[in-house]
């Protein structure tokens, strides 16, 4: 899939979200670092340490360090790591200030205290930024991204037509309860999570090539950002259509993320493969194939936990 693919855009946006605050902190570092290097005397006076002979050297060193933070953070790579270096820097600064405060009195002591409060505040922001950047990176790692294909004995037009009516998707995608199309672009999806938990989102079709391809993406604000593309490629020599599906899910951290992960089981790719098997069954035979051992049709879980091959008890029908 090329760079213009909407699913890629989705991932870029996620990365942006994780790097916004670190970038601001980079600017802060740049300002502090320049101040420390260009006007150490002013900084020393403002912070109440202008009486110490070592102050100017220490302030210049801290300034230089801040410029390193700024360079790292503004470059935008590995924001989580660089934000943590700021947290470490804050710890050094607070230690220095603590020692300074102990042997000051009067106005200087007040200024040192104010500076300490300010640095502590910045440290808190740094900490939040570092944790958030780390989570963003973890979320990126959690993204479920898979590509699965099946060959169906139908023309690309027939396969496309069935898929284009998104309300058909729950007939073969086992984790979906319902899809309601609002208009040609927008739709509302309801998935069934573990323990009856429902996960809902709105999606839009972002690319629609008649009889060839279809791409959709959840709308911003969704707690489980996801996107998909299906391509319908004629199989060689009249062998039907190769249906190639790419799906991406970005489950959040925490309980909801775990629920989403469970939705797809331990082998998300196997689940989508089963979905495609059901798609093949529905477009080729008109129904999901059921046996007494697998009364709900193909599913990985059911294959492991087969019921005996005898008719279902009346209560389960």
């Amino acid at each position, binding site marked *: 899939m090329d760079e213009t693919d909407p699913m890629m855009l989705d991932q870029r946006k996620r990365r942006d979200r994780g790097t916004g605050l670190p970038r601001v902190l980079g600017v802060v570092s740049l300002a502090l670092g320049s101040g420390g290097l260009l006007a150490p005397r002013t900084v020393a006076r403002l912070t109440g340490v202008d009486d110490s002979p070592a102050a100017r050297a220490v302030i210049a060193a801290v300034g230089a360090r801040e410029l390193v933070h700024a360079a790292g953070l503004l470059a935008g790579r590995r924001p989580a790591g660089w934000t943590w270096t700021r947290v470490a820097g804050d710890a050094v600064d607070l230690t220095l200030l603590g020692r300074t405060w102990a042997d000051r009195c009067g106005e200087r002591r007040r200024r040192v205290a104010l500076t300490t409060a300010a640095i502590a505040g910045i440290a808190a922001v740094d900490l939040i930024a570092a944790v958030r950047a780390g989570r963003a990176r973890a979320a990126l790692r959690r993204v479920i991204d898979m590509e699965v294909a099946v060959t169906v004995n139908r023309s690309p037009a027939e396969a496309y037509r069935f898929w284009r009516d998104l309300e058909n998707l729950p007939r073969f995608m086992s984790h979906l309860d319902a899809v309601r199309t609002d208009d040609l672009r927008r739709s509302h999806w309801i998935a069934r999570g573990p323990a009856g938990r429902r996960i809902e989102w709105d999606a839009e079709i972002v690319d629609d090539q008649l009889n060839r391809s279809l791409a959709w993406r959840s709308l911003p604000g969704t707690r489980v950002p996801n996107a998909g593309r299906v391509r319908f490629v004629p199989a060689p020599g009249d062998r039907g259509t190769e249906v190639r599906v790419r799906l991406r899910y970005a489950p959040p951290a925490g309980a909801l993320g775990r629920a989403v992960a469970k939705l797809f089981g331990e082998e998300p790719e196997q689940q989508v493969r089963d979905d495609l*098997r059901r798609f093949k069954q529905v477009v080729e035979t008109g*129904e999901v194939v059921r*046996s007494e*051992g*697998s009364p709900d049709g193909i599913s*990985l879980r059911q294959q492991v936990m087969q019921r005996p*091959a*005898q008719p279902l*008890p*009346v209560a389960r029908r």
Partner: protein
Amino acid sequence: MKATVWMGKDSVKVVKVPDPTIMNARDAIVRVTSTAICGSDLHLYHGYIPAMRKGDILGHEFMGEVVEVGPQVRNLRPGDRVVVPFPIACGHCSSCQRGLYSVCENSNPNAGTAEKIMGHSPAGIFGYSHLLGGYAGGQAEYARVPFADVGPVKVPDEVPDDQAVMLADVLPTGFMGAEMCDIKPGDVIAVWGAGPVGLLAAASARMLGAARVIVIDRYPYRLRLAEEHVGAETVNYEDTDVLDALNAMTAGRGPDACIDAVGLEGHHGNAAVYAYDRAKQAARVETERPFALRQAILACRSGGVVSVIGAYGGFVDKFPMGAFMNRSLIMRTGQCHVQRYTRPLLNRIQRGDIDPSFIISHRMALKDAAKGYKIFQKKQDECTKVVLKV
């Protein structure tokens, strides 16, 4: 209803289970009138086929009367008398449309598991393990038949159950075994196994114009059936060296085609050879005892066909690949694509070309199924084929 269920190794029982219902629009419910025990049911009985569950209804050879049809079944009506092919096939996938019904791409809901073992999944089969779908079988009072618009064939009243029920599996399977031999005038066909499928393969080979048919087994009563009903020559491997005998009978050429109608639970005249594979099978180092297959490959004339219709489930050992490759042999095989053969073979039965019911040795009531399995397993009372009447 009452149904024959698998209870574990060497144990079946007729128990009460819920009646089947229509689960899909293309289903039909059949009230079973005759259902047979297949040699391959013995593989299940002996526990050689994986993925069986206690309580599974057995049976893939059955016929009866349609009592209910789903809304999409337009070719059948309640009251129709039908025989049901053992592979379940959708009729619409590429495989079905090429006539390869037993490798239907849609009918195994447990295809994922089958793929792990076999690479790709074959079709689902009635009452034949969860690896092949977990479908309830037909050794019962009623059976649900999926894709009833594709599989079942209406049977005219003048064809009795005893003939028609053979169309579910053994006659088409034997016939396909012979057809795969590509028989030409003058051909000598050797058949390993004088069970129902082997006997009907021999009869089909005759019907398709083989000059001579040689049947190999160790049970004199079964070899007698081959001589009397098929006009075959016979070799008893317990007292004769098969390769020597076949070479002598064909003046050193070897049979033009060899049919393995034995499969994974073969026996061997040499106790040491039998013990070797039996031990490996017990230790799960191999899953099959492929004596017949090995012998068929060694016996076959160079450039000839080895047609494998005996059932295999897993892996064989000491496969004579050198002989197979260096002598330009051809192997053809497959679970029978029954849907391809039911109508033409029904016509042949009606024309009197073949009467497959000669293999039936026992007719008993469904409630006696456990006894039927036992005598078939032990080859007691000259048992060849048990048909359960419901």
